């Protein structure tokens, strides 16, 4: 029989009270806790390094860069329009605004104006994107505070809006709809009723959410007076957008320096007072209503309705038939013959093309009907597509700012006169609030990090580029 070594008996008190042989600490020690980079309440990969005294945050540091993909470096490597898919992936919740912001910066550098219809199309699509962005922000914040219903409702509304976006651009997220000098294609003919029905759904959802959240004791207690940043500090941190307006500063790029058609549309700038999470929530809710108002006005004023291909009653032909006829020398009236395009190219017909694109052959690709149907169109197409040609703005630099969903989204583009941008800088609207995040959470409870981080609405793709 093997003798087991004798184990000294321990009183249960030692186990449960930490008394006896355990050293008794003279003072409490602060605890270092990582939140992230992968955490269920994190909207993206970010690491919040906190020093805790009990439940209280003593000190915090934010580490970013987990989603850095070298957007600015990649933009320098290709022609101007090639940056469009990269801009989709900046703020992937409202990619249309990024598209148009970049396009407008290059247009400013070129010194060209887009057509009236294009301006309205950009306004409409940007505002729809802004609604989807705010829906996501509020939905996610509410979910993290336990209101899962709100999240489902808001994602449902976002889904209706994304269907509209999909109708226009052909994609839900990676839309690449903007083009320097215009947009990829005109709005589809059934666009307006689709928007109206999506807005009806969104309004219902917003009403329901108002009832669920705005007076909800749990929600208000978690949001009110939490994450406060004074007006001076918000400005010193260069925070723009809903977070600045929540402190009562009515700064909105759409009003301060109107671009596209915003100076002709009537809308209000909702502002808060306290600069806390609750006011940020209220500002975002009110802004969605204003965005819908803008879209409805813009739809009513949209110049030049959609044009269908066979409006002139001419026979339609496919691009291949064009080529065959050209080979046989039957080129009479070829330029005037409308083309039957694949559904993927809907909205790119000659007539529609003219209404949404700037009349500048150095910048805008000709309509597909011209590319396939005439030598001038083909040459024009080649001159923009072939390497070393393309869009060539004169030497110089331009900064263009649009109101993104999180604040001022600026693009600073430097041209060296070649077909590639020499430098593209994106001023990400969610970098300043993320930089101010330690300031907002220091001194608060651990549980307050979650709603504050939600109201910052950090989008990693844009923050880290």
């Amino acid at each position, binding site marked *: 029989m093997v003798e087991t070594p004798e184990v000294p008996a321990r009183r249960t008190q030692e186990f449960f009270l930490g008394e006896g042989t355990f050293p008794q600490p003279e003072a409490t020690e602060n605890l270092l806790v990582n939140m992230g980079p992968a955490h269920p309440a994190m909207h993206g990969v970010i690491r919040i390094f906190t020093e805790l005294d009990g439940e209280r945050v003593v000190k915090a540091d934010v580490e*970013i*860069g987990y989603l*850095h993909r*070298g957007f*600015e*470096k*990649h933009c*320098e*490597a290709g022609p101007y329009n090639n940056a469009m898919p990269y801009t989709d992936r900046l703020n992937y919740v409202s990619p249309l605004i990024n598209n148009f912001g970049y396009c407008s910066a290059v247009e*400013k*550098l070129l*010194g060209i104006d887009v057509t009236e219809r294009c301006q309205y199309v950009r306004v409409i699509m940007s505002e729809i994107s802004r609604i989807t962005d705010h829906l996501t922000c509020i939905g996610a914040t509410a979910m993290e505070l336990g209101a899962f219903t709100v999240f489902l409702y808001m994602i449902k509304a976002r889904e209706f809006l994304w269907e509209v976006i999909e109708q226009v651009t052909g994609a839900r997220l990676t839309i690449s709809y903007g083009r320097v000098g215009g947009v990829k294609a005109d709005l589809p003919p059934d666009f307006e009723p689709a928007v109206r029905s999506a807005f009806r759904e969104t309004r219902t959802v917003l009403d329901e959410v108002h009832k669920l959240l705005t007076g909800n004791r749990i929600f208000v207690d978690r949001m009110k007076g939490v994450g406060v940043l004074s007006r001076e*500090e918000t*400005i*010193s*941190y*260069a925070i723009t957008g809903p977070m*600045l307006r929540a402190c009562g*500063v009515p*700064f909105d790029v759409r009003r*301060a320096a109107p671009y596209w058609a915003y100076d002709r549309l009537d809308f209000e700038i909702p502002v808060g007072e306290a600069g806390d999470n609750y006011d940020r929530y209220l500002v975002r809710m009110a802004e969605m209503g204003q965005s819908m108002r803008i879209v409805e006005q813009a739809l009513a004023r949209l110049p030049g309705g959609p044009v269908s291909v066979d409006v002139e009653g001419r026979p339609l032909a496919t691009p291949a038939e064009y080529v065959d006829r050209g080979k046989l020398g039957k080129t009479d009236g070829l330029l005037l013959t409308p083309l039957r395009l694949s559904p993927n190219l809907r909205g790119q017909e000659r007539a529609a093309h003219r209404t949404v694109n700037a009349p500048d052959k150095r910048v805008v690709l000709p309509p597909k009907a011209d590319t396939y149907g005439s030598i001038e169109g083909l040459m024009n197409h080649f001159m923009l597509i072939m390497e070393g040609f393309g869009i060539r703005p004169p*030497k*110089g*630099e*331009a*900064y263009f*700012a649009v109101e993104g969903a999180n604040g*001022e989204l*600026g693009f*600073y583009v*430097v041209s*060296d*006169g*070649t077909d590639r941008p*020499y*430098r593209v*800088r994106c*001023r990400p609207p969610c*970098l*300043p609030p993320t*930089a*101010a995040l330690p*300031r907002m959470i220091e001194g608060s409870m651990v549980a307050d990090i979650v709603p504050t981080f939600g109201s910052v609405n950090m989008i990693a793709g844009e923050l*880290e*580029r």
Partner: protein
Amino acid sequence: MDGHAILARLRERFGPAILETGDHRGDHTAVVDRARLAELLRFCRDDAALRFDMLMDLTAVDYLKFPGRDAGARFEVVYHLYSVTEGHRVRIKVPVEEDDPVVPSAVPLWAIANWYEREVWDMFGIRFDGHPDLRRLLLYEEFVGHPLRKDYAINRRQPLIGPRN
């Protein structure tokens, strides 16, 4: 205040330290000597007529391969200032030589300069004198080189690093 008036005010106050002023596509720009940059930024923020209370953006440009620019400094640090109270903008540029890439920090003036300057250090290797905590912002400390410099090849690989401890 309109852009020309802003530039005129800066010229009047700083004279020869303003190396160049310009207006391209409606963006008003002043190129400033580095020696007086800190003073100029403070003036921009505190002057009663200018009141640039927001540092909208801070970035840099590497002019190493810019065609037709053989002389002159390699880098330019670019400040976009905005005044929330007055609603006007200006762009301030500072030439920075390659062999002495240091610029005075704007952290005492605007809190956001902290992260912007960390990003410029990360991407361009330009140091900010007086910055409290100049770490890389987007990349990791073991990263070799500064990727937005024009002599950093886009397909360059970095060695893999292990966990820190």
